């Protein structure tokens, strides 16, 4: 592949831009920078923000590779302190002495610095041809850019409790303070939208990069890419082309969610930063409801504009490359503390990369330790590697020639899948490989009758064998009660969530008890008793909240309303379905499930759509994938693409990019 010279210059300039800030030091200082030691870090205590990161590293070269050094961004530092060492903390963990080195990364500068780097990187995506650019001219473009910038600025105000500890000086009650942020957002939105518009046709094929460049600003609860969907969501609104039913239903639900937002519950976004509200309050709810609405409309708009340019070969090549880079940078980050810091900052991660430097490690019970690399969740990244393998299988089914990149993808994603230890994904991919093989060899069509009879017979035999066993009833009772048992462990004092009250009520209906028992049984099989038990101990909805939720992307009420015996670490519900029960309630969720079954039935001959949907829905039932922006966006767009396209004819696509 030929790389154009201007692009090389651009990449070169970007590398310089990436490195320069970490040389920022107090001019004319003649400090003799000492090495950090367990006994003495006084130099760093009395000289905060005086020496650059580079000076620190050159005097503490072991901090580059020894894994008891941890570089951490200090978003609440001043502008002057950017790229300098703002403090060193020594912690004793067992026999190991850990050094936490805070590096000044002012939130105000992060916004502009990270955005510029990511937009430059985005500009490496091939451009559309000019005809397409002109046909996609947007009415009221500048007004929409201003509206998106205003919305993003409003999010800072709405979540001021979160931002309060991430800014050095910022008066949240003073309107003038927001002017600088507003201008920054205008600059970012304008440039990003312009860069996107002339490359929009390739976007579907570059979606996998969302998993590498997560694009979350350090110190913010925002993802860069959401700008595009907010923009196109507003474009869709101004064009008045969207579904009126969707708009009306969402409006009615929004009014209820806003009316229902009472109290104030803070939620530390943690690993789902960028795609969740940090507080359950009126203003934050208003922002996240608007965000969700525009995101959905934006996703649809982006899909309708660019669906024809999807190339399964290019998409799979990018999946393969991203899988490789995730393994590469994950490994580098876990072995070199400084790379871990740069990974976090320049990829825009929600959470620091893993510091376990042996991805093959087992614990003392000989159980494989999940290794997540860069990504915040090992299960979700395991799902991604599985997806890569699945698409490579699709490429083979389409009789397309595999390139060296695809072979790299097979190797990287198989390795990544093993590292992540996502057993569900491993089993599902195994089945997909078998079914695909039967399909390619046309064995299934020839032996359809025999295969069906054999599968049903084996299934029935297993079922009868299990049910007739004397221990079955005892085992079922034990397994189904494990969920309630765990829920009671987390229940604090005499405080009960409405869910626990319902469970404890002897007058609960037989249907509810049976359903709960079955749910408990499933949770036991999936090793989710603890997580879902925790959810039951917390979940305290009113009847209306159970039916239609308490607002999209907001965990504040769930995590703040009911006091429980908190577990040692922050745990999400470990089921996207449970998360969406909190967000939108069981009524809309059931409608979505019915719609999904209908679509699956209608499209049952579309092998790729069925395989993808089953793979995703079985996975999200038992993990939090849909709480990550990258996963939500990728799955939503792939669902639409695969639903509407049975065959992918790369030759007819309007792509200007070479594969």
């Amino acid at each position: 592949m030929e790389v154009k010279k201007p692009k090389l210059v651009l990449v070169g300039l970007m590398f310089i831009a990436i490195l320069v800030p970490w040389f920022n030091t107090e001019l004319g200082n003649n400090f003799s920078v000492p090495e950090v030691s367990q006994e003495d870090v006084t130099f760093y205590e009395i000289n905060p923000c005086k020496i650059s990161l580079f000076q620190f590293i050159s005097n503490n070269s072991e901090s580059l590779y020894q894994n008891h050094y941890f570089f951490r961004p200090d978003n609440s530092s001043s502008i002057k302190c950017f790229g300098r060492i703002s403090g060193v903390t020594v912690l004793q963990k067992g026999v190991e002495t850990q050094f936490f080195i805070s590096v000044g990364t002012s939130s105000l500068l992060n916004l502009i610095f990270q955005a510029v780097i990511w937009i430059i990187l985005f500009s490496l995506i091939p451009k559309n041809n000019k005809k397409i650019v002109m046909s996609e001219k947007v009415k009221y473009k500048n007004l929409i850019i201003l509206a998106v910038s205003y919305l993003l600025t409003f999010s800072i105000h709405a979540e001021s409790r979160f931002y309060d500890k991430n800014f050095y000086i910022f008066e949240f009650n003073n309107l003038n303070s927001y002017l600088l942020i507003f201008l920054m957002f205008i600059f970012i939105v304008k440039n990003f939208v312009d860069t996107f518009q002339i490359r929009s046709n390739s976007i579907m094929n570059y979606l996998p990069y969302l998993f590498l460049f997560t694009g979350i600003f350090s110190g913010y609860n925002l993802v860069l890419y959401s700008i595009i969907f907010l923009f196109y969501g507003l474009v869709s609104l101004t064009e008045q082309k969207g579904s009126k039913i969707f708009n009306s239903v969402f409006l009615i639900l929004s009014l209820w969610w806003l009316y229902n937002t009472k109290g104030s519950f803070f939620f530390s976004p943690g690993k789902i930063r960028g795609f969740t509200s940090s507080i359950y309050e009126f203003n934050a709810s208003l922002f996240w409801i608007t965000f969700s609405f525009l995101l959905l409309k934006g996703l649809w708009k982006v899909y309708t504009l660019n669906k024809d340019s999807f190339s399964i070969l290019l998409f799979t090549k990018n999946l393969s490359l991203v899988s490789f880079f995730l393994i590469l940078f994950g490994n580098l980050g876990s072995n070199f503390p400084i790379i871990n810091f740069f990974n976090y900052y320049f990829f825009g991660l929600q959470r620091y990369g893993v510091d376990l430097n042996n991805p093959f490690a087992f614990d003392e019970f000989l159980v494989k330790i999940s290794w997540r690399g860069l990504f915040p969740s090992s299960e979700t990244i395991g799902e991604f590697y599985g997806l890569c393998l699945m698409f490579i299988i699709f490429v083979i089914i389409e009789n397309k020639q595999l390139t060296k990149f695809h072979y790299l993808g097979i190797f990287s994603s198989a390795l990544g899948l093993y590292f992540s230890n996502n057993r569900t994904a491993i089993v599902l991919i195994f089945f997909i490989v078998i079914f695909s093989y039967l399909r390619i060899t046309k064995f299934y069509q020839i032996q359809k009758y025999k295969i069906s009879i054999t599968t049903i017979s084996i299934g029935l035999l297993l079922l009868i064998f299990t049910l007739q066993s004397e221990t079955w009833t005892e085992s079922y009772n034990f397994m189904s009660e494990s969920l309630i048992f765990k829920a009671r462990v987390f229940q604090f004092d005499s405080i009960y969530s409405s869910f626990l009250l319902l469970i404890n009520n002897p007058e609960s209906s037989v249907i509810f008890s049976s359903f709960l028992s079955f749910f408990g049984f499933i949770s036991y099989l999936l090793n989710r008793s603890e997580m879902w038990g925790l959810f039951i101990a917390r979940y305290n909805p009113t009847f209306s909240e159970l039916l239609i939720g308490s607002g999209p992307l907001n965990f504040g009420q769930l995590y703040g309303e009911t006091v429980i015996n908190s577990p040692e670490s922050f745990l999400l519900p470990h089921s996207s379905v449970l998360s969406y029960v909190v967000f939108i309630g069981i009524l809309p969720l059931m409608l979505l499930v019915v719609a999904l079954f209908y679509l699956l039935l209608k499209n049952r001959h579309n092998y790729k759509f069925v395989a993808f949907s089953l793979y995703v829905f079985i996975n999200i039932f038992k993990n939090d994938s849909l709480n990550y922006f990258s996963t939500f966006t990728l799955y939503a767009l792939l669902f639409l693409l695969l639903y509407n396209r049975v065959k992918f004819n790369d030759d007819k696509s309007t792509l200007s990019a070479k594969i």
Partner: protein
Amino acid sequence: MSAIENICGIQPSNFVKPDISSNPNFIFKNDINYTAKQLFDSEGNTVFVNSYVECQHYVLGGWDFTPIKNLETDLQTSLLYVMIFLVAVTFFKRKFRVLKWK
């Protein structure tokens, strides 16, 4: 929060403000319960104050500069001008391109 409260801390409950201006020989007494504070004026001169009344007097007299915070405010102001410039360039750049295409 006022500048005095911000720099000198919360006013003591039994605080009575003495009339310092009418007494040219007024001498500030050290308050052992008060943590000494370093104040700065606009030219970077510095003074240590050892009581709330002394601190209040100096702050009202213009010694209300906190160098690091002031530097941050100045940098934020500069950043604001840079952003105004960049936003203007971004919008005009597009206009220029459109004219060139025509």
